[in-house]
């Protein structure tokens, strides 16, 4: 049983190598063009009162790879997710009267279709399916019902078809098989008849992810999939995410801890104060001064004592900065 659980050891799958290779020649700069972008976002800004939570002028997400969207708490990652999945509307959205100038209005296209202004339902129907930072397991439905709800093309979801069971029973059986298969993969099969509300926080995250997969998305967007998941599960969760990529799916996931993304991401986008401040492969992006700034900037006013977010390089950089400052002061 445990042998088929994907793990994140150093072994790099062929698909993983191909994914990394596909962006190998892309320059490491914010807003850079990708050779095969599945999602392109332009001029997306969102203001809450005076606060600009998101201000992304241009961003492309490469098809078929795992892209991590990282940034300190409050960087605007969740808001950005909401904007591109249609759960929120950009302040820069085109309006009939008095909107932004032509060419400066928010625009996003996914898989060749405009998705800027079509609402969450249609975005999901296009194959861009998301999960939420605060899990939304439907707690008074069973685990299996949660899964079935994620499926596409169930004719019984039409009221007139619904009344006559033979019209949808066959598809329901297919859906159930698929759901059980996914649940087994996520180690939730024994829980299938329990109410989703009875699951632990981590299991709810897994359920939400499995449910999103029921629709065979083209791209899956995970908002902090690791948060609250028990550390023993994180490894296998990371493995699952890699397996999705290996199956040809595009993955965009949010995380605020840089360590987490190291192993599995093929490309990293760093946000700070609403803007994309850096892009590149995990190994190099963390050395970017803008990234160090972003994380230190955030941590100057939050938790200075917490070193867990600092990579070794950052710590060295910090130390160097301190020495430089001391020498400067010494000279004065």
């Amino acid at each position: 049983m445990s042998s088929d659980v994907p793990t994140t050891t150093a072994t790099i799958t062929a698909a993983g190598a191909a994914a990394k290779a596909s962006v190998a020649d892309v320059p490491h700069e914010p807003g850079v063009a990708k050779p095969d972008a599945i999602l392109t976002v332009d001029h997306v800004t969102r203001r809450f009162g005076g606060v600009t939570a998101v201000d992304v002028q241009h961003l492309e997400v490469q098809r078929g790879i795992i892209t991590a969207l990282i940034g300190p708490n409050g960087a605007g990652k969740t808001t950005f997710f909401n904007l591109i999945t249609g759960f929120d509307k950009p302040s820069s959205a085109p309006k009939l009267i008095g909107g932004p100038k032509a060419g400066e209005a928010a625009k996003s296209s996914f898989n060749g279709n405009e998705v800027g202004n079509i609402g969450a339902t249609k975005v999901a129907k296009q194959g861009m399916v998301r999960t939420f930072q605060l899990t939304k397991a439907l707690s008074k439905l069973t685990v299996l019902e949660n899964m079935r709800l994620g499926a596409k093309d169930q004719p019984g979801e039409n009221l007139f078809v619904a009344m006559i069971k033979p019209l949808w029973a066959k598809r329901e059986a297919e859906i159930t098989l698929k759901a059980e298969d996914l649940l087994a993969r996520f180690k939730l099969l024994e829980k299938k008849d329990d109410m989703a509300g009875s699951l632990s926080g981590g299991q709810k995250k897994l359920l939400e992810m499995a449910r999103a997969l029921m629709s065979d998305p083209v791209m899956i967007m995970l908002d902090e999939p690791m948060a609250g998941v028990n550390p023993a599960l994180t490894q296998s969760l990371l493995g699952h995410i890699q397996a999705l990529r290996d199956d040809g799916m595009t993955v965009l996931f949010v995380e605020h801890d840089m360590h987490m993304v190291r192993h599995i991401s093929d490309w990293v986008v760093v946000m700070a104060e609403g803007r994309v401040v850096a892009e590149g492969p995990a190994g190099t992006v963390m050395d970017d001064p803008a990234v160090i700034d972003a994380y230190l900037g955030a941590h100057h006013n939050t938790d200075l004592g917490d070193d867990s977010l600092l990579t070794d390089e950052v710590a060295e950089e910090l130390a160097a900065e301190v020495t430089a400052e001391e020498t400067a002061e010494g000279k004065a």
Partner: protein
Amino acid sequence: MDQFLTTLVAILNSAISPQTAALAIAAIGLNIHFGYTGLLNFGQAGFMLIGAYAFAISIIGGLPIILAFLIALVAAVLFALILGIPTLKLRGDYLAIVTLSAAEIVRMVGRSSLLTNITGGSNGITGNEYRGPFTDLSFFGDGRIDFGPWNYDATGSNGWWFIATAWFVVALLCLFVWAIMRSPWGRVLRGIREDEDAVRALGKNVYSYKMQALILGGVIGAIAGIVYILPASLQADSMGRSMTYFIFTALLLGGAATVFGPVLGAIVFFALRLLVQGLAGQFVPGTIMNGQQTEQFAWIVIGITLMLVVIFRPQGILGNKKELSFDVK
């Protein structure tokens, strides 16, 4: 003992009366709104009124009964659209406020003296102005049929014909609700009840489903209105806020989000009232509580029962605690 028997017979009679069936039907409709979809419709009585007026006025206007029935359903669909279009994209409380006031508006318009020619104003419309075509449909014949404690005319108003059709409609609707709520369509509704955004993220058109639920429950409410007025008369004030409250009480007593909860709730609702009234009349001396006061006392007891149910058995008599349609925390 005699008086106890009288109470018992009264309860048995109310249990099968068309009025009880009408309350059950209205609660079945509300169950689709509130129990399964989580829509707060505080104006179910408004749907009843719409159905009742559309039906009665069409018949008085000379239309055949089947057409009058269809017009009542269409009127309820329109009413649901008017209520739903502006509110279903907003937070749930908006629907609650809008339905509450819309039902009041319907009642006020219905009883206003300006429309006395059509609606009969505050006096309403007497039953024999619209009952005829329905009575004519009866194949129960004339005379009386006695059945245990139940002795009624076969066809006359409040007789077996009215009782049988009313409960036949209840049975059909229970079957219908059972069939659609076990389906994937019903699953989407229950998902929406839990968390709209989650369902939206799965690519379902939440707005459309909420609208379908509102329309369906409202149309069933209109049917309840027709069943309610057929053996009686149509008076706007008999389907006001207190009627909406009775419907909610029946639903919560019996168990929201269950197929038979609304039916059992409606029966228990009337039985409880009669029982309290009967017992109070029997054991409390008239000097302490007179007839009218026992009736009020019965309402108080029903109110308290509702509170106790919500606190101690929030799933109602038939409900499943794990699948509560509302949270009491």
